[in-house]
């Protein structure tokens, strides 16, 4: 019976991790994020007290909330810095084309549009926000 319980718990944890990895269907992370190998880069989305993988799941699911919350605090209260920043997203998740020019992050097959097209939601961020990293970044 105890073995049965152990097997049951293992099965749950395996199915959870499978679910986590099944969520990993983003084909184009952008050049800088794809090349990311060092620890500092990998820790970008890491939340305190949670594993890196779980942090990524939360980041994927809740990025609109993070940005929405931060945008109001920045614009209305002048709170600068902190974790959530659309400029930081764009900085790592854009790709460079054959001519060495940045491709807008919301262009077809690029980071934002792959998922957003799949789930049929439109973004309004980039009618105002810059779609490529700033020159000095």
């Amino acid at each position, binding site marked *: *019976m*105890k*073995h*049965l*319980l152990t097997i049951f*718990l293992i099965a749950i944890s395996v199915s959870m991790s499978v679910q986590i990895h099944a969520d990993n269907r983003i084909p184009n992370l952008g050049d800088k994020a794809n090349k990311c190998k060092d620890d500092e880069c990998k820790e970008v989305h890491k*939340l*305190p*007290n*949670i594993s890196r993988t*779980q942090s990524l799941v*939360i980041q994927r699911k*809740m990025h609109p909330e993070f940005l929405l919350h931060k*945008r*109001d*605090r920045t*614009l*209305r*209260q*002048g*709170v*600068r*810095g*902190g*974790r959530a920043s659309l*400029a930081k997203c764009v900085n790592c998740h854009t790709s460079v084309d054959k001519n060495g020019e940045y491709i*807008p992050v919301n262009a077809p097959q690029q980071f934002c549009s792959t998922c957003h097209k799949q789930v049929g939601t439109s973004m309004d961020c980039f*009618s*105002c*926000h*810059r*779609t*490529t*990293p*700033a020159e000095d*970044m």
Partner: protein
Amino acid sequence: MNKLNRRDFIKNTTIATASVTTIASGISLTTFAAKSKESAPVTNEKRWGMLINVNKLTESSIDDMIDACQEENGWGSEVHSRAEQKPDWIKKVKVKDKATGKIDVLPMLCQHCEQPPCVDVCPTNASMKREDGIVLVDRHLCIGCRYCMMACPYGSRSFVHENLDNQKTHMPRGKGTVESCTLCVHRVDKGEIPACVEAVGGDGVIFGDLYDANSKINQTLKKIQSTQIRSDLNLNTGVRYSGI
């Protein structure tokens, strides 16, 4: 095989469920608590203002201010807009005294009123005043009705008529929203001065905290005679002029 009775099974399952719940609630708690190195919200202990000494400004120095503003905030390169549709965050205004014929040229920008009419009329609360007196448009909420452009006595707001790209990272701008001088809020929050003030240099334009008794703007305003444009409207502007 060590048999597990019904009671033990229930006990173990309860402990497992409880621990999972604890961890899960911890996740959401730490998610919302996670913030690093954020600056504190601005307060009404400060009020940013600008003193423009018209006597010390020439037409070319006003042009320098306009160029610096365009460069800093990325406006002025609209190609599809007609002349009257193009944005004007800061413009050159000539005023003539009819009696004497004296002509003054002055830079006209958002006056960052204490009682801003643009904020009063905004139906979506997009037009807003920060605690430190800087009047801004929240483009996330702006529906482009242009009531604020009608309400502003200084004509300092513009509407973006065309699709834009390659905006500045610190200054998002887009079609269908209203915009105006932000007093270079992204620079002010970093402790820097607005681009136009930097472009003039010297005492031509002074930027600072109106409430701070030690600030240059406060001390200068105590000494010299200055005026608020359309002071009859009692808007208590943050931008003051001297020499007109």
